[in-house]
């Protein structure tokens, strides 16, 4: 090998070595504020291909697909884990809630699962609405929901254009007034269309808070006495 070419090969090798050394020395604390799995999914998975519906695959299939795609997209470890949680754990929750699974068989059960978890008293959603000024609901909404439903819940988030059907308009008071607490709880817990099952992604109290915030968004509540 002649001199200049030998030098070029050496330079490439040296550059690769420097990159490797830097990577191995990179502290885990270098990661900034972690985005939610929904955000990572919407920001990355639609870059090269259309967003695949979250119910397109089961949990183990998503596990393999996420491993494959995160390599191709060169995602960071935290981004990979966030989107894995979003898709894989969401699929597990969806499977657990499927008819015949013996779990969440009825609407009241769903509401119990979504809003109380184990050992917590079942609150009524109108009571939860009193927590409109809570910080938790908006924070969860921003992290998990804005990407599809938009900042004001109008169904116009960054990922909305790629979704069919489009995300619901959560600020539509007429529509939200017709949605019973039970129906809202079921959708949040088990998912629908491209929306993942948040039953295992969020804690019961987080589900309660974000549901309360959804009522705040539209200012609409179900008819008195409905569940």
């Amino acid at each position, binding site marked *: 090998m002649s001199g200049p070419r030998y030098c070029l090969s050496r330079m490439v090798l040296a550059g690769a070595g420097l*990159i490797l050394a830097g990577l191995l020395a990179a502290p885990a604390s270098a990661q900034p504020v972690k985005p939610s799995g929904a955000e990572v999914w919407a920001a990355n998975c639609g870059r090269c291909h259309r967003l695949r519906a979250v119910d397109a695959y089961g949990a183990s299939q998503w596990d393999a697909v996420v491993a494959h795609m995160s390599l191709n997209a060169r995602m960071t470890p935290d981004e990979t884990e966030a989107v894995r949680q979003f898709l894989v754990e969401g699929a597990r929750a969806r499977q657990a809630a499927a008819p015949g699974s013996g779990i969440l068989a009825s609407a009241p059960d769903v509401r119990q699962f979504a809003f109380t978890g184990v050992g917590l008293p079942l609150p009524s959603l109108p009571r939860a609405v009193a927590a409109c000024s809570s910080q938790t609901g908006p924070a969860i909404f921003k992290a998990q929901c804005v990407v599809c439903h938009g900042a004001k819940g109008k169904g116009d988030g960054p990922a909305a254009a790629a979704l069919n059907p489009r995300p619901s308009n959560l600020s539509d008071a007429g529509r939200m007034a017709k949605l019973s607490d039970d129906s809202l709880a079921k959708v949040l817990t088990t998912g629908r269309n491209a929306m993942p099952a948040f039953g295992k992604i969020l804690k019961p109290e987080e589900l309660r808070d974000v549901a309360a915030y959804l009522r705040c968004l539209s200012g609409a509540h179900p008819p008195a006495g409905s569940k």
Partner: protein
Amino acid sequence: MAAERLGLGLSLALAWTLVQAAPASPQAIHVTGYGSVEFLSQQGSKATFDAHNLNLILVGKLRNHLFAAAEVEYEHGGEEIALEFAYLAFTRIRYLNLIAGKFIVPFGSFNVNHPAFINKVPGRPFGFDRVIPVTYNDVGVMVRGGLPTGRLTRVTYDAWAVNGLAGDPGGDLRGMRDNNIDVDGSKFFGGRLGFVGPHGFDIGASVHTGVYNDENDLRVTLFGVDATFQHSGFELKGEFVQANQQTTAEDLKKRGFYGQASYLATTWFEPTVRFSQMDFPGESNRDLREVSLGASFYPSDFGALRIFYRVNKERSVTEVKDNLFIAQFTVGF
């Protein structure tokens, strides 16, 4: 010598990662893939259907940090059956994924994003078949990953050592692929450094270099830059590649470029236009331009019907009437 040392070091790292892999969790194995069927009507040729491809991809998370993937191509009604890639990936080291086997060389953007269900315009842009010989896969080792730089932004990197291209002096680069067992013993090295930002912003620069002839005295070096920007359904993307190829006479500089714009007007309709150009020194009949105009129709999240008309122009010799109408149905599953 350096290549042997690098190979030895990476082999030891692979072995260590494998030995240290976490206890087996339930394996997640999935068969995925893509396929496309086309109707082509080109000036000067007879119209034809083409069962372009049905490619099956096996992806498997074997252990927590051990991943395998392989793609088998069935193309053009069975005329071509080939292994597109087959590799093992080790992801135990934070920010550094180690890949070994046969993989698609991540030079630029189009070489990776060529499948029909991803590529919004049927067919390759000029320059992305003979300057960078898409689809270019090779056998070797690679490290790749992403380093966080902010919320949903990251610096990405790929660095690889592969068997490389091999062929006759001044030969067509496309014919130098498939060097599965290195015939000239000379390895190619390359990498891509990129940045992924908000609004679908993705930019990168790539290089790939090595000697390609039996006498080990002629080098070919590929340079490339690629960029993509997406916002509210709009997408703009472009890529440039240049190959500097030494020959026994005068060196050759081959260049290719494309720019593409699309707009997702509704969830099911996306008009797209692409311009591409290729420059070959000394072979003016290969100096070509293309304008493709058409639209994609999406019946679901995994299928697309693309209707396009491609205008091909010769730049410095007599015009050849070879414009092309293409209807393509493609799925990614």
